[in-house]
């Protein structure tokens, strides 16, 4: 005999088609996955809704012509060696029950900050902080004491506080570093790898990035970002988390100040006690449908980027480019971190050569990879007719290569790079919005951050870039912190 209630029992509903969850998470990027792992591990019934067909969001990968291309991640920041405790990487591994072996991180060789028309002033740094310190002592002898004082301030600062008051990083740094060239050089990597605001940043954000880049360091798994995503997915699945791919959230139905239901892209509707959105503050605000006028959401960020990816038929070392992992460049003494008026600002940028991580004596990436990133203006790319868009991409690809080459060792012959090139690809701010849904191609989200992740709805919280922990380790810690703070610590 089958009695009616039995049919409605949760055991008979196939996985991934429940209609109620303890927690619904919007977006399967690093922060959403990390939040999901925490919640599922502690017995919450969780589902992640992802509009795209792959996970990772801003840090993902795609296949083209049989190759896998990483997007977003140049390097995982925040690297510390085993035994160094109390750092974001250690917290992340513990909270997600991930071992160091699972990520199998390989360290950078060295990176540089190169300023001047051909990088005449160059500061090397590596995962050993003493390298940067000695470079500054040598090239900016009058600044080294001030720099050390700044480092002390950075170390003492509580950067994970959820209720810190905003302060200008430029103002604070200038109290210790008085040579504008050194100031601009220190800000260049920090801003390129995480600042959502132009010209200046909030000091807490500066501290997070300063530690992540200079005091800690760069590393990556041999196979790139997909290793990290695979580990996260495995943990999430093993903990019992569900996900629905190619199924975004179309609306959040608000009733009486709460997220009452989620309307999905496929027309279905689900409910959840709590909703965590990783898609950004303005992006989330746009989903909320309520009877009354919504509270103003922060404006989308203004900072976006273009990136060229060049695949080579040989190791970059054979072109003389075997030492630098990442080069942050700027062709004058003053670094302008702002949305350019034109399509791209090629004066400054970031070069990444993924081959130049230390993968061990007998291991190297099968092909050479040369990536170059510059600031770009979303509006100047977003509305172009297809043909113009393609032509502009082509034109800027060449311009970026030319700009970046000024800061790398001279090639054996002028056409050596072209001759070694197997294939190329390029993404623009338009690509970012198309694949991630982030408004205005804003990689680092809105300028204004929301540390506590609260929204106008009592049971809807933000995690990810707009909550304000930066970098990919920061993204994951953001998901963890918001899951802990709003849900796990309260139930």
């Amino acid at each position, binding site marked *: 005999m089958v009695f009616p209630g039995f049919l409605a029992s949760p055991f008979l509903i196939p996985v991934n088609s429940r209609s109620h969850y303890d927690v619904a998470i919007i977006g399967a990027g690093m922060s959403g996955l990390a939040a999901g792992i925490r919640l599922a*591990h*502690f*017995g919450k019934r969780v589902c992640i809704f992802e509009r795209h067909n792959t996970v990772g969001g801003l840090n993902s990968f795609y296949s083209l012509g049989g190759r896998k291309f990483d997007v977003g991640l140049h390097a995982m920041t925040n690297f510390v060696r*085993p*035994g160094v*405790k*109390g750092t974001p990487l*250690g*917290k992340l*591994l*513990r*909270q997600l*029950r991930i*071992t160091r072996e699972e990520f199998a991180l390989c360290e950078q060789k060295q990176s540089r900050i190169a300023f001047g028309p051909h990088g005449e002033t160059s500061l090397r740094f590596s995962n050993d902080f003493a390298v940067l310190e000695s470079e500054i002592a040598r090239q900016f002898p009058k600044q080294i004491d001030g720099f050390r004082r700044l480092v002390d301030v950075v170390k003492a600062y509580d950067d994970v506080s959820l209720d810190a008051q905003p302060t200008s990083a430029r103002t604070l740094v200038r109290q210790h570093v008085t040579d504008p060239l050194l100031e601009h050089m220190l800000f260049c990597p920090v801003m390129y790898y995480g600042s959502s605001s132009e010209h200046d940043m909030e000091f807490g954000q500066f501290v997070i990035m300063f530690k992540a880049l200079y005091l800690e360091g760069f590393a990556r798994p041999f196979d790139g970002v997909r290793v990290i995503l695979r580990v996260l997915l495995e943990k999430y699945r093993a903990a019992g988390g569900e996900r629905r791919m190619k199924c975004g959230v179309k609306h959040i139905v608000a009733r009486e100040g709460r997220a009452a239901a989620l309307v999905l892209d496929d027309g279905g509707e689900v409910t959840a006690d709590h909703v965590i959105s990783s898609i950004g503050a303005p992006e989330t605000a746009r989903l909320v449908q309520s009877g009354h006028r919504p509270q103003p959401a922060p404006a989308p960020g203004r900072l976006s980027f273009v990136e060229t990816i060049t695949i080579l038929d040989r190791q970059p070392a054979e072109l003389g480019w075997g030492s630098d992992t990442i080069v942050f460049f700027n062709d004058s003494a003053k670094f302008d971190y702002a949305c350019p008026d034109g399509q791209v600002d090629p004066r400054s940028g970031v070069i990444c050569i993924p081959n130049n991580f230390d993968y061990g004596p007998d291991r190297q990436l099968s092909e050479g990879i040369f990536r170059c990133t510059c600031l770009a203006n979303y509006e100047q790319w977003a509305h172009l007719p297809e043909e113009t868009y393609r032509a502009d991409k082509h034109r800027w690809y060449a311009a970026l290569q030319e700009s970046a080459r000024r800061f790398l060792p001279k090639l054996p012959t002028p056409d050596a790079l072209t001759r070694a090139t197997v294939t190329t690809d390029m993404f623009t701010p338009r690509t970012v919005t198309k694949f991630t849904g982030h408004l205005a191609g804003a990689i680092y989200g809105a300028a204004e951050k929301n540390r506590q992740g609260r929204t106008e709805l009592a049971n809807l919280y933000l995690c990810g870039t707009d909550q304000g922990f930066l970098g990919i380790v920061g993204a994951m810690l953001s998901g*963890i912190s918001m899951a*802990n703070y709003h849900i*796990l*610590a309260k139930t």
Partner: protein
Amino acid sequence: MTKDECKKVVLDIIADIAPDEDLSNVKPDVRLRDQLQLDSMDFLDIVMELRKRYGIEVPEADYMQLASLDSSANYLTPKFNALPAKS
């Protein structure tokens, strides 16, 4: 459950949440925080694992009872012994 068994339960949880810590010489009468690198996130996890694995609730006001292995055992052992016997 004896107090020693209870200490073992707590140590096993710490071993799982902080596998990078050496737990071979943890002194039972010294605050865990003073001999191991454990932060508030880790203590939250100890509480949550107690609930997940054994159904034991530690209200926020009692978190300080978990400061050392001894204090944990004093606080948790009666709770373990009050659990309904498994059928």
